[in-house]
């Protein structure tokens, strides 16, 4: 998939997942890449930026095995942002699908 499209898509996915439940980085990467092909490493710079911008907070929780997991939790500001982001996304995909259907009908 085109890199520029993918970067925006990953952001949408992260907001969609975190508004349902808190996750650690690996979990997010795993969930997203089970649906679309991504470079999982890009998720960490994205999470750092969105955390610094106040959309997420982090906390550590011990795990039964291995290192403590760093969980990301969506903030009130993040929930507001997610709403507008998902609206943009839905408008965009709806528009593109309509356009493609129109073009194929004309053939």
């Amino acid at each position, binding site marked *: 998939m085109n*890199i*520029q499209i*993918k*970067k*925006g898509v990953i952001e949408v996915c992260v907001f969609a997942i975190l508004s349902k439940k808190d996750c*650690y*980085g*690996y979990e997010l*990467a795993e969930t997203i*890449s089970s649906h679309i092909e991504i*470079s*999982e*490493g*890009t998720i*960490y*710079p*994205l999470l*750092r*930026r969105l955390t*610094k*911008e106040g959309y997420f907070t982090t906390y550590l929780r011990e795990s039964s*095995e*291995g*290192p403590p*997991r*760093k969980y990301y939790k969506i903030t009130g500001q993040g929930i507001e942002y997610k709403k507008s982001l998902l609206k943009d996304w839905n408008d965009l995909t709806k528009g593109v699908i309509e356009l493609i259907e129109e073009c194929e009908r004309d053939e």
Partner: protein
Amino acid sequence: MNKKEFLEKLDKALIGIPKDEKKEVMRDYEDHFSIGSEKGRTEEEIAKSLGDPASLVKTIKAEYTITRAKREPGIKNIFRATIAVAGLGLFNLIFVLIPLIIAVELLFAAYIVAVVFIAVPFLMLAYPTSVSILSGDTPTWMVVAGLHIIGDVLLVVLLYLTKGFYRLILAYLQMNIKIIKGE
């Protein structure tokens, strides 16, 4: 590539990022490897799915310098952010850096004008003989006071302009980060 090789490459490429920040970044990827191993994946598989460390670092650096410029406003940090973004493509070097330099120079020149205008009455008091103003029929003191007021107003306008300009640059740079190629 195994875990050690991936982390070494990442560590080397993260040059210029402060120690604390770097430690946190490395920690994220180290943890990613540990968790992946627990889930039964090999180091090679994990490294492959993470992507190329060198291009990850480009994104990390650009994101880092921009968030810092936002937190600690200053020309130095803005320039760092600009150069980091420019590093993602030559297009941006030409279309971001050069207009930015020109705009900074224009602002600087305008500040000098404002300061000189404000200083005129004081200069005249300090050196009554060496400073002369071509005032025609208008009394000199009026021209001097006028210049001083213009200087004050200009300075206030410039301060607002600088603030707005700063925000604009940051917003533009952030937009670039998102748009630009470079995975």
